[in-house]
């Protein structure tokens, strides 16, 4: 009973805390350079080094692409455009290769869905495997006669093993 109550309280607390966290707005910085950097996080860098980074994280000094794109991001922000709009404009200009993740439409949906689909299939298979592994068990163990002396021998052995163990 005590366990059930505590478990229910714990669950309620978890749900409540999670709700508060989800509802909380993300604080944004007013610094322009930080805002430019954050927009750059959503844009793949197309520098000549063929790097795997974003415009924000490309480590190439004087990265030609970053130096070309960052002023455009800054102009957009100064004009009052939303970061998502700036990203759209830049993607329209440079192509889909600027994306850092698949689109949530068309074939891109397959990209998003597949890992979760695989996880779902895997989790669905576990109960099936468990059932299959348990099915081969005999329905009911047969009742058997037990020799008291044998039980005592085994009990002594278990005690001895446990003593040796700890």
């Amino acid at each position, binding site marked *: 009973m005590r366990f059930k109550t*505590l*478990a229910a309280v*714990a669950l309620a*607390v*978890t749900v409540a*805390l*999670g709700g*508060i*966290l*989800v509802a909380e707005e*993300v604080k944004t910085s007013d610094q322009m*350079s*930080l805002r430019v*950097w954050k927009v750059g*996080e*959503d844009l*793949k860098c197309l520098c000549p080094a*063929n*790097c*795997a*980074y*974003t415009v924000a*994280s*490309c*480590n190439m*000094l*004087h990265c030609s692409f970053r130096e070309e794109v960052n002023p455009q991001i800054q102009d957009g922000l100064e004009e009052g455009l939303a970061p998502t709009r700036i990203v759209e404009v830049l993607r329209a200009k440079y*192509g*889909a290769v600027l*994306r*850092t*993740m*698949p689109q949530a439409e068309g*074939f891109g949906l397959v*990209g*998003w869905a*597949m*890992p979760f689909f*695989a*996880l779902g299939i*895997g989790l669905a298979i*576990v*109960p099936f*495997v*468990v059932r299959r*592994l*348990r099915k*081969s*068990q*005999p329905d009911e*163990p*047969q*009742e*058997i006669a037990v020799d*008291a002396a044998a039980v*005592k021998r085994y*009990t002594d052995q278990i005690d001895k093993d446990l003593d*040796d*163990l*700890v």
Partner: protein
Amino acid sequence: MENLGYLAIFLAFLVSLYAIVAAVAGKLTRNAFLEVSGERAVLGAWLLTTTAAGLLLYAILTDDFRLSYVASYSTIAQPLLYKFAAWWGGQEGSLLFWSWILATYGVAASYTARKRHPEMRSYVNAVMMTVLAFFMGIVCFAANPFKVLMAGPQITSVADGQGLNELLQHPVMAIHPPMLYLGYVGFSVPFAFAIASLISKQPGDRWINTTRMWTMVTWLFQSCGVMLGMLWAYEVLGWGGYWAWDPVENASLLPWITGTAFLHSVMMQEKKGMMKVWNIVLISATFFLCIFGTMLTRSGLVSSVHAFAQSNIGDYFVWFLTLAVAGTIYLILSRLDYLKSESQLDSVLSRESSFLFNNVLLLASCFAVLWGTLFPVITEALTGEKITVGKPFFDTVNVPIALFLLLLTGVGPLFAWRKTSLASLKKNFLWPSVLSLALGAVLLAFGMRHLYAWMCFVLCAFVTITIVIEFYRGSKVIQSKMQLSFAGAAVELTHRNTRRYGGYLVHMAIVLMFIGFAGSAFNERGQREMQVGDTLQVGDYQFHMRDLAEDTNVRFTSAVAKFDVLRDGELLGELTPEQRLYHTSQQPTGIPSVRRRLTEDVYIVFAGYSRETRNPIIQVYVNPLLSWIWIGGWVLILGTLVALIPSKVKRINPRTRIVGSVPKEKKVAV
């Protein structure tokens, strides 16, 4: 010398082919002479590969710039450590390095098989030598490191080489590739044993113990390799992070994940004789992912900053992988009768079930990484559209799976083998759950508002408490029985079952790393053009630029900015980010300066000069809790080493089965 080197490579290729033929023919015809001959050919292949490797190293160390490879990856002024690292700095040398490690492992595997599994030794040799023959074939016919520079019909030379990429000239980078290769190549040994057991229809699980030890050692190398790669990225690349989900980084992670799954599920086979097919599949998948990872770095299949020059050797890898996968599938399917489970699952609430879930989650994570890595290729092939899949995708997909795995890390060991009673669940889960949620409430009260980070900290607390309780309970019993100090009792407890408690230490390492990963949710960053005397504020810190000095030496010209780091006006220390311009490559490189603390790292990069004003551009990153990732790495090494020490108490895992039952009312008086 180039002729001798090539001859050694060519002979190593031929000898490894001979080893395959001799081993298989000897086994099939029961000709002991051939079997032993095959075994000695394994040693011969190692000697020849070592000779080739030694000659290449000699050429690098003596600045023999007649060799194209030496001219491309070494210079006269290159420090000795990096001359040595030039061996694996380029495509041809790294493939020879791969082959040399494989040949060395081949000798060790052959010795182990002869001592412990004589019935499988020929097949183990044949598999190892097949892999070696493939790599030596590539080195021999497609990536010869002994090619000389030619001017018309004459061999020529250059006065000095181009040298190793400056970014690779870092002490960590001198260790990272060998560690990673020891991991990649090492997985071929358990694979060879698995295939040999299939071919020879091994009914027993004795070989599993050998395989598990090899896998643990290899897994340790792979872990070190991945961690060192992260450390190098953090210390050298200057973007304030350590993991960019680059395809080549992902390639090193994939076999690590499946190897981790194997290390868990193999326990089911050892203790219960279950999951035999699954374990063969897992270890085979791990090996294939190692080959796949090697292919990714060399074929130009995906774009990566880490990839070697594009070449056509990717085709050979595709063929090798296709044939190897097909052969393995055939072997598994034809041996299903020998791989039947020996016992049943007694309850869903059991350690066995938790291992099943653990495997599913690890494989889902592996699939997500593989899928994200290959999705641009698939998309381009199917739709013609070029897209990129980067950090946001991998983070979105993998973070929930990783948190679920973290939960299982705490929950799994609390389940008993066979069946866990409700009373045991209550006893084991109550306090960890209550205390970790209490911590969650405290974090929330202190203003933590990032959902995933909050969940991560709560789960880390949960897992830590479960591990501490496990050590505490066991140590207390031993303390009372043996009259030891608590620390002595904890050591004694660990020594009695090194595998179990070493495993707990590895779990603790994962917790520490997750604390470091969660810290990234609170990273702060600032950037501005600065002059001497300027101050930049990022978070609670002020960075005052005190000096800017320039210097030059034989290798590079450098500019070093000196910063006073202050918090609330209090001077904490000095940081000196640097920018170098190497004379050979004319490549500007930023060398970050880092102030490490357990609470947070402060990381400054001299990112370059403004084109308009010529003032230095300075980037500052404040990375909370990041040091815990490296601490976790050390604990992981410690835990794995502990798990590799033989236990004081020898355990056997007898297969138990229920043959009958005694009704409760017929209690036996003893």
